[in-house]
């Protein structure tokens, strides 16, 4: 039994190492994907083009504007434009927001309990508009505390942003990308493992030998686990050193969960390989069935809680949903094993289900 398994594993390694072109693609592709998406598709907003109209022209107003300009969030592109140009500026997308400080700004600060400033935001991208508004509110709050030490409010909400103090979306995005890449690669790796032997005809010779389907399935999974692991480690290291994503939690826990997740992806690929009859169909099936659900419904971009209820149920059977919670938790929050038991159990359940189904669907005869 063990000798048979060992022979299959060894043979599979021979295949992988002989075909070094494919091996290079397997190793380089995730790295490229991370670079491409990591740099291009960042959700973080910086350098928002801003026009400031200071009608007050006082030290107070200049102070406030300086406070804005000193952040990297706002980028002053113009100042003191006449009011009838506002529409034009926003329409032409010369600026995404216009800040207006009225002539009585300084005076009002002194006498009124409340001073209004006007912010015009281009809300054609509502998310961005929200972001801009929040940011300005944060800065004006800081300005208030600094300039008016006697300010007494009934209570103050003073948010402390934990785990990702700079609100860097990289930190959120890169672990997600790792999850997507690992799943895709591991499912693709095994998706052709069996169907290729069916196509080339070598499966026929295996099937007349006394090998059990379990041995074939496990024997084919183990070598690809190693490759999948190398790939994942590579992507993760790049995330850490290139995008400075922290690794706060335990490395052992990270390794263990990655292993579980890779096996889940590999077993999905195997199942596809078993039920299809050509390599092309198998690869297409994997791409279609992993890419879209993983990206759209796992919480990679849209939080699961904000999805329609039906999709929330669907997201439970998507491995990436659970792994995203796990990897973000371990990397950014330092989550411990006890925190992640539900997610890890889900992954183990999905993997177990897929492997069982693979073994049952494996045909020991030619059809």
């Amino acid at each position, binding site marked *: 039994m063990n*000798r*048979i398994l*060992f*022979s*299959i594993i*060894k*043979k599979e390694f*021979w*295949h992988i190492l*002989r*075909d070094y072109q494919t091996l290079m693609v397997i190793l380089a592709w995730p790295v490229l994907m991370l670079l491409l998406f990591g740099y291009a598709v960042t959700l973080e907003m910086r350098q928002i083009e801003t026009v400031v109209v200071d009608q007050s022209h006082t030290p107070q107003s200049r102070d406030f504007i300086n406070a804005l300009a000193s952040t990297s969030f706002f980028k002053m592109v113009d100042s003191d434009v006449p009011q009838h140009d506002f529409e034009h500026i926003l329409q032409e997308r010369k600026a995404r927001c216009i800040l207006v400080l009225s002539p009585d700004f300084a005076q009002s600060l002194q006498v009124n309990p409340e001073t209004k400033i006007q912010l015009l935001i281009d809300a054609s991208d509502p998310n961005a508009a929200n972001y801009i508004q929040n940011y300005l509110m944060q800065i004006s709050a800081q300005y208030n505390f600094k300039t008016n030490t006697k300010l007494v409010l009934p209570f103050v909400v003073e948010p402390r942003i934990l785990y990702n103090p700079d609100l860097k979306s990289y930190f959120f995005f890169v672990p997600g990308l790792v999850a997507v890449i690992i799943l895709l690669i591991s499912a693709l790796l095994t998706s052709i493992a069996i169907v290729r032997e069916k196509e*080339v*005809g*070598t*499966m*026929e*010779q*295996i*099937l*007349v*030998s*006394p*090998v059990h389907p379990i041995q074939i399935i496990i024997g084919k999974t183990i070598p690809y686990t190693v490759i999948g692991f190398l790939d994942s480690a590579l992507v993760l290291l790049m995330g850490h050193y290139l995008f400075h994503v922290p690794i706060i939690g335990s490395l052992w826990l990270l390794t263990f969960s990655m292993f579980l997740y890779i096996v889940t992806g590999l077993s999905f690929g195997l199942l596809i390989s078993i039920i299809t009859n050509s390599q092309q169909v198998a690869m297409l099936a994997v791409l279609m069935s992993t890419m879209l659900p993983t990206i759209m419904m796992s919480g990679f971009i849209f939080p699961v809680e904000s999805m329609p209820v039906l999709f929330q149920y669907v997201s439970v059977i998507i491995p990436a949903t659970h792994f995203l919670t796990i990897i973000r938790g371990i990397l950014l929050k330092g989550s411990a094993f006890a925190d992640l038991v539900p997610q890890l159990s889900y992954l183990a359940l999905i993997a177990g289900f897929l492997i069982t189904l693979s073994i049952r669907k494996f045909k*020991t*005869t*030619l*059809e």
Partner: protein
Amino acid sequence: MIAVEVKELTRRFGNFTAVKKVSFSVRKGEIFGFLGANGAGKTTTIRMLCGLLVPSSGQARVAGLDVYTEYEQIKKNIGYMSQRFSLYEDLTVRENIRFYGGVYGLSRAQIKERTEELLSFLKLHEQAHKLTASLPLGWKQRLALSTAMLHNPQIIFLDEPTSGVDPVSRKNFWLLIYQLASEGRTIFVTTHFMDEAEYCNRVSIMQDGVIAELDSPQELKKKYHASNMQSVFMNVVKRAQNEPDSF
């Protein structure tokens, strides 16, 4: 001793019946030839006997074991060389042999011993470390035979082992077959070459899924007043076409 016994074995693919109620038996140590035009049902019959296809109906026993229920045991007792070369092109000769040795559960020492034995028996020593893809077809067929022989099977199924091979290699291959038969093994071989049919102890001629003739080459030649198997075959095929209902 009966090595293979088949009764009314039938295999359908959808509405199409590839093998229709064939019955025959093969004695131990016999070289049993399976002739027939393309699509006659030779490969389908062999696959049913090797546990690669489940018969639609009928009975078959290989090495005394039932093909429906004891196929696991059958697999340990037979060697099979498929019509299409089905070893790994990206592995060397030795690696292919070693892999199948492992798959058949041979120990490390046994694999080593059998590898050397087979390499010298098949005169493959010089090719041992070459990638299989680089070998000419004649050598590949030898390699396929050697992996089919690894676990010392008593019954060997060879599906067109010599197709696409030059005459000299064919002759050499048949010398190997004779040697295996002389060791008491049963050889079940299909072929398109009528000269090869002469080498068999008995041949069956298949036509459209049924066995049209089954006897020794000598008897068949006598029956059809023919000087060689080629004209026997032509006669059988003609007869089958003229009176298709008799089958």
